[in-house]
């Protein structure tokens, strides 16, 4: 007897679309962070580099978590 899938296809599609939206949003934040940090760094301000990198790592962690959740749907 096969186990019933947790979500129907249309719901999985809705979820993956939602994930896609969130992941793109987070990547846009990361891109803005990198651009702003590069601008500050080239302007001689290095104080923002480390906090910005930590924020970017947090964004990656969020994205990786979302991806992991997506794979666990199956």
């Amino acid at each position, binding site marked *: 007897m096969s186990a019933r899938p947790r979500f129907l296809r249309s719901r999985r599609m809705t979820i993956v679309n939602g994930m896609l939206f969130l992941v793109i949003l987070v990547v846009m934040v990361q891109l803005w962070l990198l651009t702003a940090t590069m601008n500050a760094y080239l302007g001689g301000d290095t104080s923002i580099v480390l906090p910005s990198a930590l924020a*970017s790592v947090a964004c*990656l962690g969020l994205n990786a978590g979302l991806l992991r959740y997506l794979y666990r749907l199956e």
Partner: protein
Amino acid sequence: MSQPGTENPRDVERLTVPPDRRSVAEQPKWRRDFPIDFAEDDYTARRDLVKFIVLTSAALVVGQGWLVLKALFGKGGAAPPVLPVAEVDELPVGGAKTFTYPEGSTPRLLVRTGPEAFVAYDQQCTHLLCPVVPAVEQGRLHCPCHNGWFDLATGRPIAGPPRRALPRIRLEVRERTVYATGVEDSAT
């Protein structure tokens, strides 16, 4: 809501639906011979796109890490060379010449602002790298590409699109010769 085990076997969720939504009998032969689970295919493609974007996210973190490394360890290195760039009598007051410092660098601009006063900056505008030209009588440097202006005394941007100062070349005058002794980072 259907109970477990009572799903309709013809539930559209469980069927392969071609992209044009027509019945299987109406599909071209190649599609009937090689049926594809289009819904699953769409889902997998979307999931792979999410995966690719997460990889992009990782690449952006690598970029941030590179900046951290540059900020932590990029300041070291050998002492800058001391190189002669001009004779004092070579330039009239208000005159300018280009040079490279250190060897192989982007062009630098040396300007004589007074009988014994010289300034030198990177000649590339900090906006989009157009060469700046001196406007000594106005005390400014001008970037003609997008009408950017820099203060001749400090290199700081004063008008137009540039937001960062021109990198300044440190100078020394010894025995009627102007020497370049280092490059200062640009500041906002």
